[in-house]
């Protein structure tokens, strides 16, 4: 390949970079504009600039939304990883009757549209008091993210050499000890990948969150619901400054996580789908 072709391809990569990153330049610049400047001027670089919008975000209790989302996503992740890695290990390694039927069932659940749960779960949650509760959200999230967790982890467990457990068994370990002392630590990268993907999915969920906990940041309203629901001084007008500032507050840590764990995430995403 000639030198010029190489550079041409690098230039084409710039198109991909711009596609992925440009909207964030717009977001950051807009969030920094003062007063009603953001609403009146489409020019990205026209000031005055300042941090007023960010102050506004936290005056509207956004830190409580962050707390709720963090707790709900963390609970979802913990339950999914613990429960899912047991199931994945059984599917990948242990003698199990009707394995194919189980896998088909798990696959079917991964095809469920979440909206099918909204009317019935709302009635159930209402009668047992789980509306506006963390539990009311992380329980269904767990059920929805389990299939993906199981698929990702089954792939990772299947890739660990079987001889290792057999050696442990010969040395006198029970099947359970062989799992949690030998295989589970070796699968840690896979578990970590699954954990990030589940966490992101739970953190981003909007349909159930906006139906089961639409208001009250001090109880269970999550970040996406708050970002969709910010109200301004004028009714019927979305407060562009507050919303964009809140978006930046959320996007920055997520971008850092995505960049830091890039390889893990990509490995997990592809294990959950392409490799099948």
């Amino acid at each position: 390949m000639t030198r010029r072709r190489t550079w041409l391809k690098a230039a084409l990569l710039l198109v991909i970079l711009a596609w992925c990153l440009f909207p964030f330049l717009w977001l950051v610049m807009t969030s920094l504009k003062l007063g009603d400047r953001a609403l009146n001027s489409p020019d990205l670089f026209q000031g005055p600039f300042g941090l007023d919008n960010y102050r506004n975000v936290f005056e509207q209790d956004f830190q409580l939304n962050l707390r709720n989302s963090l707790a709900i996503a963390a609970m979802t992740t913990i339950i999914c990883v613990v429960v899912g890695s047991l199931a994945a290990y059984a599917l990948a390694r242990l003698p199990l009757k009707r394995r194919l039927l189980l896998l088909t069932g798990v696959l079917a659940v991964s095809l469920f549209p979440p909206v099918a749960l909204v009317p019935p779960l709302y009635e159930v949650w209402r009668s047992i008091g789980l509306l506006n509760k963390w539990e009311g959200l992380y329980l269904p999230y767990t059920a929805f993210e389990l299939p993906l967790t199981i698929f990702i982890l089954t792939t990772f467990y299947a890739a660990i050499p079987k001889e290792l457990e057999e050696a442990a068994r010969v040395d006198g370990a029970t099947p359970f000890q062989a799992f949690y002392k030998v295989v589970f630590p070796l699968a840690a990268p896979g578990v970590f990948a699954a954990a990030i993907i589940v966490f992101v999915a739970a953190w981003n969920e909007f349909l159930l969150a906006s139906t089961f906990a639409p208001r009250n940041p001090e109880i269970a309203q999550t970040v996406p619901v708050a970002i969709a629901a910010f109200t301004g001084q004028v009714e019927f007008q979305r407060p562009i400054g507050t919303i964009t500032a809140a978006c930046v507050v959320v996007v920055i840590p997520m971008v850092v996580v995505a960049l830091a764990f890039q390889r893990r995430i990509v490995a997990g995403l592809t294990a959950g789908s392409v490799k099948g």
Partner: protein
Amino acid sequence: MTQRGSGLSERALARVFVAPSLLLMALVALFPVLYAVGLSLFEYSRRRRESFAGLSNYTEALGDDRFWSALWFTLVFTVTSVAAEFVIGLGFALLMNQAFRGRGLTRAAILIPWVIPTVIAAQMWFFMFNVTPGFINSVFGLGDFSWLGQPGWATFAIVFADVWKTAPFVALLLLAGLQTIPSELTESALVDGAGRWQRLWYVTLPLLRPAILVALLFRTVDALRVYDLVAVMTGGAFDTESLSVLVQQYVVRTPDPGYGSALSTLTFILILGIGLVFVRLLGRDLAIGRGETR
């Protein structure tokens, strides 16, 4: 095996390990779906159960123009956004597969639209398309063109936002598939005198088939569920109400558990049906392939 002291046998352990997952999915995913079928057979006024209604909620739903228009929007959205994401995603993946300089950086950047919440993407594109401040209009010199305030263009804006967020994700999945194709194959086609497009069409794409099908399955099922973008960008106005938005209306805004459940059951059957048709087409590549990975 050699050890027969304490601890469960492998067979018993397998059952114990699978049980919690099955229990959770049965209780929080399967049970509500069945419960919805039960709810849908009753007549409600507000939230009070009035009487047994048989299938009248279903006949009412199937006779409702709003249901058909939501179904139509959902299908249009799914077909156009998945097609655009596939073409753009494949283009990105092919580029990234060939480039040497800057691949790591691009690969990192491509994760960013995937990682951010859809609600944030929706707000971002809402404001960029919106008349005030009119960013897109000012870039293209369109004056006060109202993208979000008329049928057709509102759909376009929603599809656009979805393509922006998800085409990179499709690229990621296809890139992983591309990297499993041995370069000898395309090189030998090159030696045989195949042109660029011939190599793509006769060598790369057929080998990429499993990755393409899986990406299409995931994206189609996901696009059929569209809710966040519509709820934030138009609220379902201007012929952009999706099935998910329609069902959600009958839960909080105009509560009717019976009618809402009938709609949600119809939506469930439709989306699961399309998903299963896909899985059927994939057959060997997916479910059975998974069974054999052990």
